[in-house]
């Protein structure tokens, strides 16, 4: 009954979503190439890696599910403290396992607090997420016997990764470790974003009323993605704690949540790479500008943001539209697909 060419085109279009774009391959080759290309910059590259993961986590809820948050540092902080405490008290000595446990701890907090952000509009969600992060920060401050309070958690000694790779003072192994974790979790997010589950999140973001009317359990999906995003953020926080062997109250700070939103907006939401690109641009700018003007560098970040909004107007991320056009033209397979489709007709 259905014409075979339509079947073929439908299969093709649905599976095209997950095919690797050449630029993606280049992106990751360059990222891993940094291990050898810039061995003296591994400390800042490490920061870029965990910040990218953190921003990817925010993209999952902002860019896909449409939940806007100003308190994503809550989960980052839980992950950071969990990893630092596990190492300090020698509960779990192996960093990879500790990383997983720290992520799960953040996930539990994400699950519990997700019910608070379900209800209400964007503004409510902003306030609730902000409130949760503030509360967690003060809890960490109060329980000084456990967290070290305002002094931070000192005396953390990290054991070698997998019992073999030591965290060296130049951050070589730390960077490789962060990059691999980032890549693995990115693969997971990429898979998730292109699955029926990921599509249902976009549907909920676009129109929750209709999403429910085609049988999507809206609240449950939001709880699930919020928990998953909390896991990602927790892992990012744990990476910071493990690579610096330190955790302080500042992991929960409002600045961190707000900066994160900036990072994601600079890179663009809803296509997974936004967080990573944003993290690269943000850290490089911060690094460059803070050398030029140690005190006033946020001025230039602010100026850039204003410029981006003026160029983009209705969509903040429109500033990188020309980049995306180039990306589309570079995709030789897209051309081949179009030719094949033309033959069908």
């Amino acid at each position, binding site marked *: 009954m259905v014409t075979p060419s339509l079947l073929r085109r439908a299969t093709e279009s649905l599976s095209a979503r997950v095919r690797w774009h050449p630029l993606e391959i280049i992106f990751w080759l360059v990222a891993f190439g940094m291990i050898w290309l810039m061995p003296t910059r591994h400390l800042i590259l490490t920061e870029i890696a965990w910040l990218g993961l953190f921003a990817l986590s925010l993209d999952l809820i902002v860019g896909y599910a449409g939940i806007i948050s100003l308190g994503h540092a809550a989960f980052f902080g839980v992950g950071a403290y969990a990893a630092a405490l596990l190492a300090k008290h020698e509960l779990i000595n192996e960093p990879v396992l500790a990383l997983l446990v720290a992520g799960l701890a953040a996930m539990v907090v994400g699950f519990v607090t997700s019910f608070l952000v379900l209800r209400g509009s964007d503004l409510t969600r902003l306030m609730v997420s902000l409130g949760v992060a503030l509360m967690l920060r003060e809890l960490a401050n109060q329980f000084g016997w456990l967290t070290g309070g305002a002094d931070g958690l000192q005396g953390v000694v990290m054991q070698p990764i997998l019992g073999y790779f030591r965290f060296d003072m130049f951050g070589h192994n730390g960077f490789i470790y962060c990059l691999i974790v980032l890549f693995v979790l990115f693969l997971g997010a990429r898979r998730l974003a292109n699955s029926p589950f990921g599509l249902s999140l*976009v549907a909920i973001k676009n129109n929750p009323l209709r999403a429910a009317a*085609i*049988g999507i359990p809206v609240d449950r999906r939001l709880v699930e993605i919020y928990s998953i995003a909390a896991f990602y953020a927790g892992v990012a926080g744990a990476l910071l704690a493990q690579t610096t062997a330190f955790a302080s109250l500042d992991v929960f700070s409002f600045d961190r949540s707000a900066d994160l939103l900036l990072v994601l907006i600079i890179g663009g939401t809803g296509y997974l790479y936004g967080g990573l690109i944003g993290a690269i641009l943000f850290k490089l700018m911060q690094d460059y500008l803070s050398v030029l003007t140690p005190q006033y560098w946020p001025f230039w970040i602010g100026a850039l943001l204003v410029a981006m909004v003026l160029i983009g107007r209705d969509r903040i991320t429109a500033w990188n539209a020309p980049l995306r056009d180039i990306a589309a033209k570079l995709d030789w397979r897209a051309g081949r697909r179009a030719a094949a489709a033309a033959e069908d007709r």
Partner: protein
Amino acid sequence: MALALETAGLFKQFGGLTATNDVSLTVEAGARHALIGPNGAGKTTLINLLSGVLKPTSGRILLEGTDITGLSQHARVGRGMVRTFQINQLFGDLTPLETLGLAVSERNGHGMDWWRIAGSRQDLIEEISSVLERFHLADVMNERTAILPYGKQRLLEIAVAIACRPRVLLLDEPAAGVPEDERHEILASIAALPQDVTVLLIEHDMDIVFSFAQRISVLVNGALFVEGLPDDVAKDPRVKAVYLGEEAHV
């Protein structure tokens, strides 16, 4: 004959306003049933109650004999109660292909599947393709829904509901706002719905109502006013008085 849908003493109050007043409606399985009434009669409120968007103040809703009054919207869809909307409610960022794929995935219980890629199930693709073809959406299947022409969006609005494989389909003014020359596509697709699907149609356009419905219920001020065969309803002087009075062509 078996009842597909039944409401018993359904009330809905918004503050002091009674939007649905003691509605006891029965729709037989496989029926083509139309619900008409003047503006503000509470037709859309009734659809919202049936589909679970609103909770009734009192009363019960039975779907194929089972009480679904307490079920959520998505659970009702799972049992086969599916609706369309008077004003398009679509997913602007998704393509028609993705939208239909999503609806079919959810129905099959693959919605939680976050690992399998959307395009890797052959049976799913066959079903989506057949819906795309039936609703004349194949040529725009890869366009973002937000940029589709209105008529195509209207078709997609119904196609999405069909992809949920309804037992009872609630159509809320399917032809609303569609230009005259695109109307026949919508009407043809409604006429071609499988016979075992029960359809409850809300419509203002009397031509559509009388060409389609085998039974008509008239709603006035939130209450069921008259119910019967199309000819009887058309002849009923009370109906003419409140509603059809000035519709000379009926």
